[in-house]
């Protein structure tokens, strides 16, 4: 299966929707800048935001497979099972680094 419609039609159908999503990300980063730090001693940016900034670079690449590469960027690269999941249920959305 390939996409049956033309590039022009893809733009017509989806441009405004994705323009809005891009503005949401821009506004989110602005909101983050305006917000008061919760921990005044924290020197490093939250790992999720660092990862989001890395993902934004992938969007500017000219190679196909951007969605896949963004998901791989967010993924735990290790293959060893975690020692215990006691007390753990959810996920962060991106790999925090260190021991998974």
């Amino acid at each position: 299966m390939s996409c049956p419609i033309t590039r022009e039609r893809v733009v017509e159908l989806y441009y405004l929707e994705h323009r809005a999503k891009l503005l949401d990300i821009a506004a989110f980063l602005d909101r983050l800048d305006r917000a008061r730090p919760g921990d005044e001693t924290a020197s490093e940016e939250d790992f999720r935001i660092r990862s989001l900034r890395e993902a934004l670079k992938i969007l500017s690449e000219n190679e196909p497979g951007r969605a896949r590469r963004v998901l791989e960027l967010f993924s735990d690269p290790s293959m060893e099972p975690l020692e215990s999941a006691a007390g753990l249920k959810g996920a962060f959305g991106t790999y925090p680094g260190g021991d998974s």
Partner: protein
Amino acid sequence: MKYIDPHIHMVSRTIDDYQRMAQAGCVALTEPAFWAGFDRRSSEGFYDYFRQLTVVEPGRAAGYGIQHYCWLCINPKEAEDLSLAREVISLIPLFLERPNVLGIGEIGLNKNSKNELTILEEQIALASEYNELILVHTPHLEDKLKGTKLIMDAIKRNGNIDPGRVLIDHVEEHTVEIVLDQGFWAGMTLYPDTKCTPQRAVDILEMYGNERLWMNSAGDWGPSDPLSVPKACNEMARRGHTQAEIEKVSFKNPKTFLSQCSKFKVDG
């Protein structure tokens, strides 16, 4: 247009959702056993849940002309307690002969822990022993890629499981190819915030083809949409895909996989 929702948690939905799904063309659904949003304290809680899946929900669905099937297991989020998990596994054979039980599922991993993996392997062995189909849950977000690989390795280690009788669910762009390449079926779950949107699911179909792939809503107690399968069908139509292509993904493919269990019957 008739369709099958092959993964939806109707115990979390109101009767209105059955009505809306029927109006949208749903003729059959399958409901895997899953986490209730809290850890159950004893195996008796699971016994009652299995009764709900095999007795109560088929009755609710029948009220709207929808055939209800289910899968039984202990889900990976409650697999960290090995003794409780093993008690629950011992209950499953008591229900396997029920007319709407299609197999073992949704088994898999959540945080990719050693205990989760142990219980996954024991449930794969159970499916092998009883020659049951398997429906696999893959982990969320950053844990998905690693978990999908660990799960496929565990299935292969068993040695007696035909990958064509296993559906690995919740695939996304970074996992769909490795799942299909190893001969498994793959499921795309349509969620508003996590997993796939209907648009991305159709993108995946366009990139990887429509063989051994299905779409499901996995509607549950979290942000989810029980009508997301017909919405994805509309997305396919919007892009100019044919009715035959839409029917293949939303009806024929799930029918083909599920019909490997002789209990699954659906017209068309």
